[in-house]
C-alpha cells in the first residue's frame, strides 16, 4: 500500500538528512505551539497586512503542486513516452506541495480548532470553500494515482483500468487548483493589485515555470545523490516547458506593469511603486523585487538560448534562478504588496518575525520529508528506469 518499508532502510547520510529535517520540523512545531498559545500576534502580521508569509507560501506551493500536470499531460494526452518515468516524481511533488499548502493555511488560522466549520457550514459563495475542495480533491487524486501506478509497477502488473480516467481528471483539476487559488485574491474589491483578470493565467504561468524547474533540480539532485539518472531527454523537454512558461509569466507581468503604470490610476500604480521603488519611504520589498526581476531576466537568457539551456552545468543554475525569482515574486511580493497601500491609503510595513520564519521552515521541512520518503520509495522500486536512457 504505502511501500513505506522502502523508506525505512537507507544509508547513514539518508538518516542524517532525515534527522536534520525532523529537527527543523520539531523546531517549527514548538514555535507553532507558542503561536497557538499566544495568538497570531507572534507573527509580523498586523491590522493592515493581514496575510503574509504563510499565505504567500501557500500560494506559491499551490503552483508547485499544480505543475505536476506539466509532466502528466504530455505523457497521457500526447503519449509523450519520454515522461513515462518521471510523471510519478511530478505526482509525488504535488502531494508534498499540497500537504504544505494545507499546513500553511492551518498555521495562518486564528482558530485552527474550528477548521471543520468550513465543512460543517459549506459556503458555496466563498472561494475559500472551493479552494479547500479543489486542494483536498487534488491531494486525493494524486495520492490514488501515485499509489495505484507505483504498486502496479512494483508488482509487475498493469495499473487497474480505472486509473487512466482518474489521471485524465487530474489534469483539469490541476489547472483548477491554481485558478481557484487566484480567484481567492482576484475577486476582492479594494485590493487593486489582485483585481485583475490576468491573475489566474499569471498564476498558472508562474506555476508551470517554478514547479517543473524544481522538478529538474530534484531529478539532478537524485542523480547526484543516488547514481540513478533521469533520462536526459526528459529533463531537456521539461526545460523547454520551463522556458515557455517563464516567457509567458514575464510577458503577463509586463502586461500588468503597462496597465498599471501607463494608465496611471493611483490605486493600480501604487502597489507596483511600493514593490519597486518604495512608497512614502517604505521600501522593504524593493531589494527583493529587484532581485526577482534581475533573476528572471538572467533566467530568460539562460533558458531561451539553446546552447545555454542544453548545457548541463548551466541548466540547474537557470532552474534555480527561475525558482528563486518566482518564489520571491509569488511567495513574498504578490501577497504582501496586495495590502499596500491599505484601503485607507496608509502604507503599512510587514516584516516576518523569527517564530513566523521558523514555522514556515518547519512546514518546508515537512514537505521535504514527505518528498524524500516518496522519492526514496520510487528509487528503491525502480532504480533502472533512470539509468536506462542516460545516454540520450
Amino acid at each position, binding site marked *: 500500500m504505502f511501500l513505506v518499508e522502502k523508506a525505512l532502510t537507507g544509508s547513514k547520510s539518508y538518516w542524517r538528512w532525515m534527522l536534520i529535517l525532523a529537527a527543523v520540523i520539531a523546531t517549527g512545531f514548538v514555535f507553532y505551539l507558542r503561536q497557538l498559545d*499566544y*495568538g*497570531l*500576534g507572534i507573527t509580523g*502580521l*498586523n*491590522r*493592515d497586512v*493581514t*496575510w503574509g508569509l504563510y499565505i504567500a507560501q501557500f500560494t506559491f506551493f499551490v503552483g508547485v503542486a499544480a505543475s505536476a500536470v506539466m509532466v502528466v499531460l504530455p505523457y497521457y494526452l500526447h503519449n509523450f513516452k519520454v515522461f513515462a518515468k518521471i510523471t510519478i516524481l511530478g505526482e509525488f511533488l504535488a502531494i508534498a506541495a499540497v500537504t504544505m499548502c494545507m499546513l500553511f*493555511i492551518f498555521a*495562518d*488560522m*486564528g*482558530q*485552527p480548532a*474550528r*477548521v471543520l*466549520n*468550513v465543512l*460543517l*457550514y459549506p*459556503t*458555496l*459563495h*466563498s*472561494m*475559500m*470553500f472551493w479552494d*479547500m475542495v479543489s486542494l483536498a480533491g487534488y491531494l486525493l487524486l494524486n495520492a490514488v494515482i501515485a499509489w495505484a501506478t507505483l504498486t502496479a509497477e512494483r508488482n509487475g502488473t498493469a495499473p487497474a483500468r480505472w486509473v487512466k480516467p482518474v489521471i485524465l481528471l487530474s489534469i483539469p483539476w490541476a489547472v483548477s487548483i491554481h485558478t481557484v487559488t487566484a480567484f*481567492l*485574491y482576484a*475577486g*476582492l*474589491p*479594494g*485590493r487593486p493589485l489582485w483585481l485583475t483578470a490576468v491573475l489566474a493565467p499569471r498564476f498558472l504561468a508562474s506555476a508551470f515555470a517554478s514547479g517543473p524547474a524544481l522538478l529538474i533540480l530534484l531529478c539532478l539532485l537524485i542523480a547526484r545523490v543516488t547514481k540513478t539518472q533521469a533520462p536526459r531527454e526528459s529533463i531537456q523537454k521539461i526545460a523547454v516547458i520551463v522556458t515557455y512558461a517563464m516567457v509567458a509569466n514575464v510577458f503577463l507581468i509586463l502586461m500588468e506593469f503597462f496597465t498599471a503604470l501607463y494608465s496611471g490610476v*493611483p*490605486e493600480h500604480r501604487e502597489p507596483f511603486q511600493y514593490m519597486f521603488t518604495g512608497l512614502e519611504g517604505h521600501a522593504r520589498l524593493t531589494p527583493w523585487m529587484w532581485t526577482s526581476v534581475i533573476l528572471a531576466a538572467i533566467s530568460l537568457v539562460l533558458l531561451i538560448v539553446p546552447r545555454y539551456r542544453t548545457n548541463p552545468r548551466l541548466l540547474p543554475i537557470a532552474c534555480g534562478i527561475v525558482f528563486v525569482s518566482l518564489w520571491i515574486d509569488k511567495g513574498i511580493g504578490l501577497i504582501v504588496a*496586495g*495590502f499596500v497601500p*491599505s*484601503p*485607507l*491609503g*496608509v502604507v*503599512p510595513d510587514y516584516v516576518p518575525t523569527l517564530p513566523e520564519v521558523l514555522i514556515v521552515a518547519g512546514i518546508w521541512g515537512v514537505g521535504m520529508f514527505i518528498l524524500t520518503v516518496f522519492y526514496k520509495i520510487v528509487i528503491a522500486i525502480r532504480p533502472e528506469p533512470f539509468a536506462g536512457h542516460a545516454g540520450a
Partner: protein
Amino acid sequence: MNLSRKAFLRVSCFSLLGAAMRKTAAAFGSTFSRKVQWGMAVDIRKCARRPECTACIDVCDQAHNVPRVPDKRHEVRWIWKDTPEHAFEGEDFRYSSIAKLPVMLMCNHCDDPPCVRVCPTQATWKREDGIVAMDWHRCIGCRYCMAACPYESRSFNWVDPRPYIKTANPEFPTRTKGVVEKCTFCVERISQGREPACVEACPEKALIFGNVMDANSEIRRMLSSRDHVTRKPELGTGPNVFYLL
C-alpha cells in the same frame, strides 16, 4: 453515492447561479427589496464642533469590551476617527471645507458586503434588517473578510484582548484571540428597540440612525435634504453609512 453527488452538484450549480442572478439583479437596481435596512448618517460638521470629543468611541468600546491595544499594529476598532483623506481614499477633498475635519468611520453594513461573500463559514452574514452581523463562535480566523473589506472596518484579535480591557462590561462578551470583529450597529440594543450606543452618546447628535428603506424615517429626511457621500461607492458594495457634507 452517485445520486447524492449529483444532487450536490446540482445544488452548488444552482446556488452559484442564484448568487450570480442576485448580483445581476442588484446591478439593475433591484437591491431595494429589503423592508428594513438600518443605516447611519454622520454629520461631519456637527461632529467637528468638538474636535477632541471621543464620546462615541468610548461608549462603544466600553459597551462592547473593545480592547485598547497599545500596539497600533494589533489595534482593534469598531468606530474610529480618521482624516477625510483616509476616509474617502480616492476622492479629493483637499480644497473642500471638510478637508481638515475628522470623520467617524465604522462598518458600512453594505448592501452587498464583500466580507459576507468571502467568509467560508457564514460567521459573518447579512441579517434581514440589513445589519452585517458576526458570529464570533463560528469565526475560524482566516481573515479573508479583512482582505475583502475595502474599508478596513474589520479588526483581528492578534493576541488575547482581555488584558487590554480596563473595565469590562459583563453584559457583553469579550472576544478571544484569533477571531475577527467589527461594528455590529449594536444588534443587542436594536433587539431591545434602542438606538446604537454611539448615536445615543453623541453630545452633538451628529449620528443619525434609522431605517433607510423607510421614506419617512429621520435618516431619510436628512439624506433627502442634505448633500452626502458614501465611501468608495464605485466598488458596488452599497455602503449604508452616509456622510452629510
